[in-house]
């Protein structure tokens, strides 16, 4: 039932463009591989472009690492591991990691600007969330370096050796910090590959690592795509693999490592249920929906992409949501007022658009916000689908875009059943003013992170990771240490 009393958001006072300046940043025309403390050319001399998804303009080109480059990197990591890194006192190791954190704080604006240019996320998010959190992760794990024995009563923690790490394009620098910081704190050395569409903040991180004075080879950065990643996974002298990305690739990796004795953690996809009860603080719940699926253009593994609204308030919540969607500003990621930035790549946009098509073909009703989008670049307006159920493909499969599927529910038990009715299990959301209901829901929803009366909250002290096909292992917090250690009795 649509309300005839309407608010007008699209005329009158508008916000003038407020672009973040790019004068203060430098991006090289070409980057090599960062191996053994310096940049070097890739063995086969091939490079690939990285573009700005908001303008489709090329920003730089980075090296394509082949198996021989990966081998060089692993050798450098092994040498550093056997040499200075494992011989150093743990407290001194921690101080190097503190330095990385401090320098990131000093260069925060530069990193935020480059992150938005390279990946398409709004500058406000990279400035206020990605970069500060990345620095905070380095701070948090730096402090653990000389305190590991307190985290494992009855065990003596020992480092593993060389960690091979592969990270995604949705939070490039932040994902790098989630991988590198605990690995180093636990005494390991690292070979890490950023996603092929977002390598630039990693190249800058290489500068930070060099300026922080870390011994050569402690962190090695190899750029490339699927084959480079496979070379890391397959390398016999890598002791541990850490991967964040799609469930499909996660399966490939688990099979590839089978029988090798390599330790691994996988942080994969999700299709989280965000559940709103009638007794929720509804205005804040609507904010939580928006934050849950439109934050970072929905390129979030733990996005609240399945909304469940208790039927008695469903119409009002959907109405509020539509109104709120009208106030979201899509546009230039470098504009400080932009809420929704560009879709990361042409191929991701194609994926999202195919799901929009599937949704319509399945008979769902689609609604998008009416904002304008720029001519060039990859864009998707915030989208909601109603008239769907658990049987729809758009409800079952991860879309990884600003697309929300909305269902109603009636009882708490039904909410729990439907929330769990998925092979995924990364996250979930519960909105109610009643405390006991929160604890019951959080107790019964089978997911690794449950947000009650909030969503998409991250902290270096708080463990993150999935149940079921959303992955194995936890990152962040005390629980994130174990993956990078051998625990001796």
């Amino acid at each position, binding site marked *: 039932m649509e309300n005839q009393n309407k608010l007008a958001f699209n005329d009158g006072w508008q916000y003038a463009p407020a672009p973040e300046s790019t004068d203060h940043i430098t991006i090289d025309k070409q980057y090599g591989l960062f191996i053994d403390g310096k940049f070097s050319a890739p063995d086969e001399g091939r490079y690939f472009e990285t573009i700005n998804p908001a303008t489709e303009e090329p920003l730089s080109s980075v090296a394509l690492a082949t198996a021989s480059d990966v081998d060089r990197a692993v050798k450098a990591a092994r040498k550093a591991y056997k040499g200075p890194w494992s011989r150093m006192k743990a407290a001194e190791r921690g101080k190097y990691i503190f330095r990385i954190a401090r320098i990131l704080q000093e260069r925060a604006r530069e990193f935020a600007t480059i992150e938005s240019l390279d990946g398409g996320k709004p500058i406000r998010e990279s400035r206020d969330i990605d970069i500060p959190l990345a620095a905070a992760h380095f701070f948090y794990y730096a402090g653990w370096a*000389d305190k590991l024995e307190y985290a494992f009563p009855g065990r003596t923690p020992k480092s593993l050796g060389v960690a091979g790490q592969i990270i995604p394009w949705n939070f490039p620098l932040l994902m790098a910090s989630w991988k590198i910081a605990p690995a180093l704190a636990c005494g390991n050395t690292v070979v890490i590959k950023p996603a092929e569409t977002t390598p630039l903040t990693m190249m800058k991180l290489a500068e930070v690592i060099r300026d922080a004075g870390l011994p050569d080879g402690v962190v090695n950065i190899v750029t490339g795509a699927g084959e480079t990643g496979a070379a890391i996974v397959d390398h016999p002298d890598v002791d541990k693999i850490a991967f964040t990305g799609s469930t499909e690739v996660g399966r490939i990796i688990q099979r590839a490592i089978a029988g090798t004795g390599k330790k691994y953690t996988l942080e994969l996809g999700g299709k989280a249920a965000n559940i709103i009860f009638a007794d929720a603080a509804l205005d804040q719940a609507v904010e939580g929906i928006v934050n849950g699926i439109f934050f970072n253009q929905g390129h979030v593994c733990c996005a609240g992409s399945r909304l469940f609204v208790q039927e008695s308030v469903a119409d009002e919540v959907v109405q509020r949501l539509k109104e709120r969607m009208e106030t979201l500003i899509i546009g230039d990621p470098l504009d400080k007022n932009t809420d929704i930035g560009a879709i990361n790549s042409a191929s991701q946009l194609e994926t999202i658009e195919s799901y929009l098509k599937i949704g319509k073909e399945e008979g769902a009703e689609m609604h998008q916000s009416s904002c304008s989008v720029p001519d060039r670049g990859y864009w998707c307006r915030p989208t909601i689908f109603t008239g769907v159920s658990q049987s729809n493909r758009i409800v079952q499969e991860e879309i990884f875009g600003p697309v929300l599927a909305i269902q109603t529910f009636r009882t708490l038990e039904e909410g729990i059943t439907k929330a769990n009715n998925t092979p995924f299990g990364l996250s979930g959301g519960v909105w109610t003013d009643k405390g006991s209901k929160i604890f019951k829901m959080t107790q019964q929803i089978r997911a690794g992170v449950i947000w009650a009366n909030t969503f998409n909250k991250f902290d270096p*002290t708080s463990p993150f990771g999935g149940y079921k096909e959303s992955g194995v292992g936890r990152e962040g917090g005390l629980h994130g240490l174990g993956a990078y250690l051998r625990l001796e009795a």
Partner: protein
Amino acid sequence: MTSTTARVPVAKTYKIYIDGKFPRTESGRYFALKDSSDSIIANVCLGSRKDFRNAVVAARKAFAGWSSASAYLRGQILYRIAEMLEGRHEQFVSELVTQGVGKRAAKKETEATIDRLIYYAGWSDKYQQIFSAVNPVSSAHFNFSVLEATGVVSIIAPDDSGLLGLVSNIAPAIVGGNTCVVLASEKLPLCAVSFAEVLHASDVPAGVVNILTGRREELTGQFASHMDVNAIIVTDNDVVKEVQISAADNIKRVIARADTKWESDGAQHPYLIQDTQEVKTTWHPIGS
């Protein structure tokens, strides 16, 4: 006509540190700190019980804000103290030497102090994780125990260790959210005052740390008996009994750390943080 005399240096006045300011002792008294050849190094404030009273008021006022600051922020501030101390390395080494500590020992002590601050900075957002618990009670309740700062802590700093011993007791207390009033070493008081200057330059809010100089014989009783102090740290075995008796009036927690060798690695650990923490357990039903 030009003079040929050398430049006359400006001598430092050593004050006390209360509520983010550097007043002189309200009593106007002093004691002379002398070196091994009996020359005066400095006139040091002879702190009074009124100074102590004022310091406790400041510490109490600062407690609400400091204890509710995020662990992250407290860790950042402790790290900043270490940065500031590193920058003033030379000053502290020379101050220790002036007070009779050997040059090499002074350098070691200063560096150990900086590293100790970094150590505790790193605990700020972790001690809660190792000392808290979710308790599996048998009723349908979510039950969790967390640590909370005990409140205002008075500290009688070690007399033998003018810098490292001082900071080794301040850091674990404040990283856990407590505020404190410290009586500096009587033998080696100067670094305490200079350390107050470092705190002042490090975004430490006013009143979180208050530092007095003075005579232990005069002030120990005050530190032990004040009804608005929640815990006292003593580093001298001879006074433990009298302190415990006096502290009993408000069941003040008495923490005796007399035999610690502050230079050793074993002198830093998270149980020193736990010493000035309370445990709070909360129950909440699980149901619909």
